[in-house]
């Protein structure tokens, strides 16, 4: 394959030769990830932008066709690496929908807790990055401190801090230990103070407001027309939240609000994320205080989840199930059907479209990545703003390139 001249960007109009073309990325500290923007500038004003993505494309969807339903969870960790737990939950929820099983209540509650902790971690990183890019370094440090506590909780739950792979088909890898529950309780107690500190630092900061207010405005009609979901849509006044609209897992048991704003600019997106963290904390608190007892995996008779070690060594059903699931020519039965299952991930609607063909491998596992849909907005949002606003808009969209390119 010989190297050829790129055709990604060809200046179309000769009459506008006074315009500058600027290459932003793929390796630029303010993109935070690997993506490239080709900006057309008139002085400092951005006239047009073109996005060039695919630098982190690693064929996750192709890999899904060659890994079984439990193995693929390790790949979902690497999609949105800021909140891997939310991806784990989304993937196995979709698989369980295809199989038609429901996990026990304790497992549902624990999944809600980890998904909401992941949401807090994701929003902390996103808001910290917006703050950092607009000059608020202290805020960045304040936000990364509670994130560390969340990673400690994840470590206590599953042994890994970053790439968790905590869920399994029909349950979880381990039950939560008393130590992990204690850490979650402590986090619930300590986090509101950290959040108050953060709000005092940035929410009414003059420089931050000047840099973000009225920048990158997305109206409600445009948000719907462009398929935007999650906090970005809610900052534009779309009230859609899958946790309320189609309550999956145990979300219908909890009392929480959907946080919305009307303005649709970068500042509104910051405010929505800040408010959502408080609501997530409410959900975690309710879930951890009402955590039901019982198993975290479906019953052995369902032949979906691996039985516990004591069941394998002391019961014949456990032994048979273990054998049936481990042998390479066995496994659980998957219907020849297709299913789409979406969850409200921190970034927006994260859905998996799974096609089963009866084998232990998915025939096709499409991931509907929120970042991909949101990054398509970027040229529209930045048009007419200045070069220094690029980082504010990019940060407020929370683009995670690994999820963008998959």
């Amino acid at each position: 394959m010989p190297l050829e001249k790129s055709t990604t960007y060809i200046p179309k109009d000769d009459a506008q030769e006074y315009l500058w073309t600027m290459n932003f990325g793929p390796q630029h500290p303010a993109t935070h990830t690997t993506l490239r923007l080709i900006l057309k500038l008139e002085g400092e004003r951005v006239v047009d932008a073109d996005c060039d993505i695919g630098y982190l494309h690693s064929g996750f969807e192709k890999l899904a066709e060659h890994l079984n339903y439990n193995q693929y969870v390790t790949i979902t960790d690497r999609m949105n690496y800021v909140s891997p737990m939310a991806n784990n939950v989304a993937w196995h929820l979709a698989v369980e929908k295809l199989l038609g099983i429901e996990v026990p209540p304790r497992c549902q509650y624990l999944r809600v807790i980890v998904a909401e902790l992941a949401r807090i971690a994701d929003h902390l990183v996103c808001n910290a990055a917006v703050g950092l890019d607009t000059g608020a370094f202290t805020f960045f440090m304040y936000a990364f401190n509670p994130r560390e506590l969340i990673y400690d909780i994840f470590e206590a739950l599953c042994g890994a801090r970053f790439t968790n792979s905590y869920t399994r088909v029909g349950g979880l890898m381990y039950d939560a230990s008393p130590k992990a529950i204690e850490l979650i309780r402590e986090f619930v107690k300590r986090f509101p103070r950290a959040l108050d500190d953060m709000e005092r630092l940035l929410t009414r900061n003059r420089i931050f407001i000047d840099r973000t207010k009225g920048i990158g405005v997305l109206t409600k009609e445009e948000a719907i027309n462009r398929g935007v979901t999650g906090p970005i849509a809610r900052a534009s006044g779309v009230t859609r939240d899958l946790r309320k609209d189609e309550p999956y897992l145990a979300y219908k048991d909890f009392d929480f609000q959907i946080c919305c704003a009307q303005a649709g600019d970068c500042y509104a997106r910051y405010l929505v994320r800040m408010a959502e963290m408080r609501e997530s904390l409410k959900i975690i608190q309710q879930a951890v205080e009402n955590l039901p007892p019982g198993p975290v995996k479906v019953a052995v008779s369902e032949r979906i989840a691996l039985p516990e070690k004591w069941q394998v060594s002391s019961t014949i059903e456990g032994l048979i199930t273990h054998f049936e699931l481990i042998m390479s020519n066995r496994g659980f039965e998957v219907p020849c059907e297709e299913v789409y299952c979406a969850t409200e991930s921190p970034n927006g609607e994260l859905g998996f479209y799974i096609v089963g063909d009866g084998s232990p491998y998915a025939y096709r596992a499409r991931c509907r990545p929120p970042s991909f849909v949101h990054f398509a907005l970027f040229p529209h949002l930045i048009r007419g703003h200045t070069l220094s606003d690029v980082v504010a808009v990019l940060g407020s969209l929370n683009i995670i390139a690994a999820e963008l390119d998959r």
Partner: protein
Amino acid sequence: MASPETLQKLKERFPEAEISEFRGQHRAVVPAGIVHDVLKFLKEDVGLALIIDITCVDYLYYPNAKDRFGVVYIVGHPETAERMIIKTFVNDPAPTLPTVTDLWEGANWLEREVWDMFGIRFEGHPDLRRILLPEDFEDHPLRKDYPLQGRGERHNIPVVTRDLG
């Protein structure tokens, strides 16, 4: 999950749509010729105005499959939990569908990804370039006849050496 009224309206307007249900999800298989009309009807007359996803499945090795590619459109209601999956089939050679970018701006990148990964052309798309893969890539890697490890593209990338002179 689609409401009974939506299904009723869809059946009346497009009798050729085959509606089925699985795990509480409603799907309609429609001929490729009317897919644009169906989506326009759902968007403008029913209110499923949110494009959630456009994707494709290559049914080459699928048991009992008759057609090669199934293109899937998932549309949703911006305020309620209502959604609907619309599916249509296209075949080799030169699988082509009409674009829906005139209905939804958000369909632009989603259709580009389907073109990139499956090689399905969208007639009337304003900017149908490859999106994730390099422009000079020749295959469509999510097709089932494309091997997992590629066809040697990675081994033929020219090595750029550092010129110390």
